[in-house]
């Protein structure tokens, strides 16, 4: 009896692990089937209070796993002209935030979507805008302007969480999309 229970438990657990893999987003354009990719979807969530405090006062908090380390390095080296704004930090804050960004960057992350973003960017490129990465463009190429730039509740692709309601938790899953004025998005 006990062994039957144990075997059932094992089958159940294996099922839990494999079912999400079988039915997950099968866009392999920028991804092979490396083992780490199957561990988790999305990008790492934002769990650093200092990062939120310092880097989400003027704009939404962008998950570090949305850009590769070289992009974050370039970003941090130009904070005196940060997309036209001054975003300078004191030395201690600068060090801690840089370390957090690099450690969780797209190319250092095990998260599936981060890996795809990282792989979509040419080796010599270090884009500063997430919306300029090839992976981002590919994922958003079917979205008409009326839903984003002409939508007063969205305005720009830079407002991720206007539609991706779990952006800060690192989930950009299709089930977590609600476009203001349009509702759910089905590919």
């Amino acid at each position, binding site marked *: 009896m006990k062994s039957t229970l144990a075997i059932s438990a094992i089958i159940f657990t294996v099922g839990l692990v494999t079912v999400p893999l079988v039915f997950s987003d099968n866009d392999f354009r920028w991804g092979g089937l490396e083992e780490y990719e199957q561990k988790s979807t999305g990008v790492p969530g934002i769990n650093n209070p200092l990062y939120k405090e310092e880097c989400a*006062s*003027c*704009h*939404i908090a962008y998950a570090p796993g949305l850009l590769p380390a070289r992009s974050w390095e370039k970003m941090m080296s130009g904070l*005196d002209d940060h*997309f*036209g*704004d*001054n*975003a*300078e*930090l*004191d030395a201690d804050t600068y060090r801690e935030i840089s370390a957090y960004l690099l450690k969780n960057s797209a190319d250092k992350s095990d998260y599936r979507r981060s890996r795809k973003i990282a792989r979509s960017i040419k080796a010599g490129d270090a884009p500063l805008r997430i919306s300029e990465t090839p992976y981002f463009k590919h994922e958003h190429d079917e979205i008409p302007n009326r839903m984003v730039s002409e939508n007063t509740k969205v*305005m720009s692709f*830079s*407002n991720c969480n206007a539609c991706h309601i779990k952006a800060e938790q690192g989930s950009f899953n299709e089930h977590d999309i609600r476009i203001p004025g349009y509702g759910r998005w089905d590919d």
Partner: protein
Amino acid sequence: MKMHIIILTSLAMLPINSAISDSATIENLMQSYKANGAVSPSAEQGKRLWGKTFKAKGAFAERSCTTCHTDDLTATGKHVKTSKVIKPMSPSVNPERLTKTRKVEKWFKRNCKWTLGRECSVQEKADILLYIANTTSF
């Protein structure tokens, strides 16, 4: 019974304690600005600077503090580029304001550079601080 009185008294003291520490931040900043050359800081001068327009190159050619913060310190502002909401500046409606020296200096540095194209002088900072704090007691 005695214990109750002690607890109630300490609870009653809480808002007073935080009020003291808030004004301490402002007082320390004012002392430091004066020690570095600010003379007779004035909220009136601060108000004028707050509403003054500065020319800039590139996007948003005309800039002032009010571009994002509006001309009402008790009103909610909006980042001119990202549209992100900025909580009111006045401690009278937003008690978190002017409670952390580091934060005050950080935003003076960033926002003076964007708005004026340079860092603010200690005189300008003292004037604006008085204007936002809505006090003449320093």
